């Protein structure tokens, strides 16, 4: 039916094209060279993963048409037949094996961290073993884009960035750095050729210029419409503003060591009552209203409702509603009626209005006599500064998103006891340690059943919500401006997929 509609539409209209204004030019077209949003957007046009992630974060067949578990740690993936790369090379199991091995040597070994071995059983079957039972392997594979073995070897890593070759719905037509990147539809795409024939991406860094380019008709769609231009675009006829809560959860990490770098004497935040008092002093609604122009969604937990490990109906904001009186009582009970002083580390160029949020936090915490010094820096300094073992920080504002749709990887990195197990707790900036949580994460990472994993991670969520090692603040909202006649359904992972779009 879909296919019929597409062909019928194609017959009456002529070539369809669209121009999309992005915030930045991609840095790479070679998926193993690095990742950032603009590059990711290009990757998914040019290449395909084995498992495809839908706009609302469910996972389905991609280049693998089906998969099954052979035993607790062995998976077998059946590959799609008749798939070709843009150069006509056939896609086979050896390309998948090559990609995994290539990734291991690259700057992105994290992509294949949960793959122990991979073997080609026959041309269209691969077998993957994991170091331990790992229920969400397919979710991970949605980020591994398959390369053409022969072509990649021949071309070399550096050149792959300029002459990409995948099986994806679009192929590269022209890339003039910082000016435009043009994709053309791949007629032999395995899922049928995309509706839009030519897609042009233009990098327009300055938000006001991006809005202007939309209003003058130079581009059809813009990413990250500036918050202050939302009203203007809405009032103009012929345009539409689309918003969608993103996956990016802004969180505050609280230090739980006995002594903390920016606090004199012993660290009050080792006491759960102090952490609860801080949570109750922070008015997220006010931040959204005043700092974010209403364009953010309060976080109910550490991961969004779509994720494995989210507990239905549990809401941090209902557990710890804003209440200065209770917060002051808690501080007094914990033995800090006069409060204390510490420093908040935050960025000024990474999250929407991050520096202003930090200022708002300082004035909110002042109400419970916590004297918050602000240490605000650009992101190029930030990540190294706050890096575990967190020698400089007591209180950190950062964001966290989990596009794999599973709380497990986040909990393992952020909440597992530090230095206990390789690959766990490596970003546990507050040194939180709870043996119960560790056990639950261990069990979740040892079960081959997704339902079991969900149950275990939900138990972990309940403990974390009570312990408050971290305060979830809000999810930023992704904002797009589109002209009328463009059909765009924003994806939860913020990627733009032209093959899911249509234009009139």
């Amino acid at each position, binding site marked *: 039916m879909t296919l019929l509609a597409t062909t019928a539409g194609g017959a009456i209209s002529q070539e369809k094209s669209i121009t999309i204004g992005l915030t*930045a030019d991609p*840095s*790479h077209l070679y998926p193993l*060279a*690095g*990742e950032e949003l603009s590059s990711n957007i290009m990757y998914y046009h040019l290449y395909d993963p084995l498992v495809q992630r839908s706009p609302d974060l469910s996972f389905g067949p991609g280049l693998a048409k089906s998969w099954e578990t052979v035993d607790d740690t062995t998976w077998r993936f059946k590959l799609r037949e008749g798939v070709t790369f843009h150069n006509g090379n056939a896609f086979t199991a050896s390309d998948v094996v090559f990609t995994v091995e290539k990734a291991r040597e*690259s*700057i*992105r*070994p*994290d992509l294949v*961290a949960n793959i122990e071995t991979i073997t080609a059983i026959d041309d269209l079957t691969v077998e993957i073993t994991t170091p331990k039972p790992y229920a969400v392997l397919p979710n991970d594979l949605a980020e591994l884009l398959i390369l053409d073995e022969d072509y990649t070897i021949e071309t070399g*890593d*550096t050149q792959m*960035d300029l002459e990409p070759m995948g099986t994806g719905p679009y192929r590269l037509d022209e890339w*003039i*750095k*910082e*000016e*435009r990147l043009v994709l053309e539809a791949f007629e032999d795409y395995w899922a049928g050729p995309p509706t839009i024939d030519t897609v042009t991406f*233009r*990098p*327009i*860094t*300055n938000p*006001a*210029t991006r809005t*202007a*380019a939309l*209003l*003058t008709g*130079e581009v059809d769609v813009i990413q990250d419409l500036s918050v202050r231009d939302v009203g203007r675009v809405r009032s103009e006829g012929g345009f539409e503003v689309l918003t969608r809560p993103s996956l990016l959860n802004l969180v505050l990490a609280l230090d739980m060591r006995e002594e903390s770098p920016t606090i004199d004497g012993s660290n009050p935040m080792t006491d759960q009552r102090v952490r609860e008092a801080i949570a109750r002093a922070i008015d997220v609604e006010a931040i959204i209203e005043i700092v974010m122009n209403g364009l953010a969604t309060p976080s109910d937990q550490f991961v969004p409702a779509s994720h494995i490990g989210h507990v239905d109906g549990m809401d941090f904001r209902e557990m710890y509603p804003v209440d200065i009186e209770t917060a002051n009582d808690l501080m007094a009970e914990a033995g800090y009626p006069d409060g204390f002083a510490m420093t908040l580390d935050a960025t000024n*160029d990474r999250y929407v209005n991050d520096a202003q949020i930090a200022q708002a936090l300082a004035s909110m915490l002042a109400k419970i006599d916590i004297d918050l010094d602000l240490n605000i820096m*650009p*992101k*190029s*300094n*930030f*990540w*190294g*500064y706050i*890096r575990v073992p967190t020698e400089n920080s007591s209180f950190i504002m*950062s964001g*966290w998103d989990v596009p794999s749709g599973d709380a497990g*990887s*986040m909990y393992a*990195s*952020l909440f597992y006891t530090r230095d206990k197990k*390789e*690959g766990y707790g*490596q*970003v546990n900036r507050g040194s939180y340690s709870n043996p119960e949580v560790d056990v639950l994460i261990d069990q979740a990472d040892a079960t081959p059943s997704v339902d079991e994993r969900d149950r275990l991670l939900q138990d972990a969520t309940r403990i974390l919500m009570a312990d408050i090692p971290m305060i979830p603040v809000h999810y930023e909202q992704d904002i797009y401006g589109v002209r009328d006649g463009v059909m765009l359904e924003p994806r939860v992972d913020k990627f733009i997929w032209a093959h899911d779009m249509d234009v009139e």
Partner: protein
Amino acid sequence: MLGYLLKRLIQMTLVLWIVSVIVFLMMSFTGDPVFMVVPIDASDAEIAQARRLLGLDDSLLVQYWKFLTSLVQGDFGQSYVFRQPAMTLILERLPATVELVLVAMVLAIAVAIPLGVYAGANPQGRISRVIMAGSLLGISLPGFWVGMVLIYLFAVNWGMFPSSGRGDTAEILGLRLSVLTWDGWHHVVLPAITLSLATMAIILRITRAGMMEVGRQDFMKFARAKGATRRDVLYRHGLKNALIPVVTIFGLQLGDLIAFATITETIFSWPGMGKLLIDSIYRADRPVIVVYLMLVALIFVVINFLVDVIYTLIDPRIRLK
């Protein structure tokens, strides 16, 4: 002349070397580039692997030595972010910047010199006062503001010019240029005006000052006395003698605009190299920053040299030693 050239060459090498040292030292304070490349939950082993792949596992001194030795062999190093040669990244963006700057400079001169001569010749006139007031505005209005106002008026409100980008280009001698196509001209107008305003104002004021000074000299009276036309007196006798400071400022401004057209480029998404510098600073991409600043230093040195040569053409009394 040969001795002069040699002296200049040694000076230039020294300047470039000092620039490289300063930039390398500065960059050790601006955060670790590895964290801009790896995912934020990367394990220690993953970070170590990235550090090795980027050549960042050596001490700063060793890194500098490697940089210097490969530089001598003509290798300027690879960008940490793009994994491409830093020089290629800059050179592929250079033509767009130079094109924009040249259009802006031509525009600045075409407007500033006649107005400056007029204002210098009639210092008390009402029109001169208007011109001088306008030039004050040109100096004091910030470029990003002017750019946004031009976009708002000419692109969004009146639809006369596009808001951003470079438009169609045509290729000549391997260089892609906008000024060769009508659509390209259309795109270059607004950014060139934005970029030229400050320079225009400065050149105008210098020309006026020079003309007023020259106007008091005896040879101007002679020129008038021998019956030369007003135009000849002003341009052939007056302007030529007022030009030395104008050429100096012109050279400095030209270098300045090529190096730091960044703001205008960002506002109009003009695909030049200024934006690359800003992005590289944000991403702590040291190789690109080093090569960029060395290239800028080189441009300044070359322009200064050319300015010196032009002096000798304008004023035969000046000799290069």
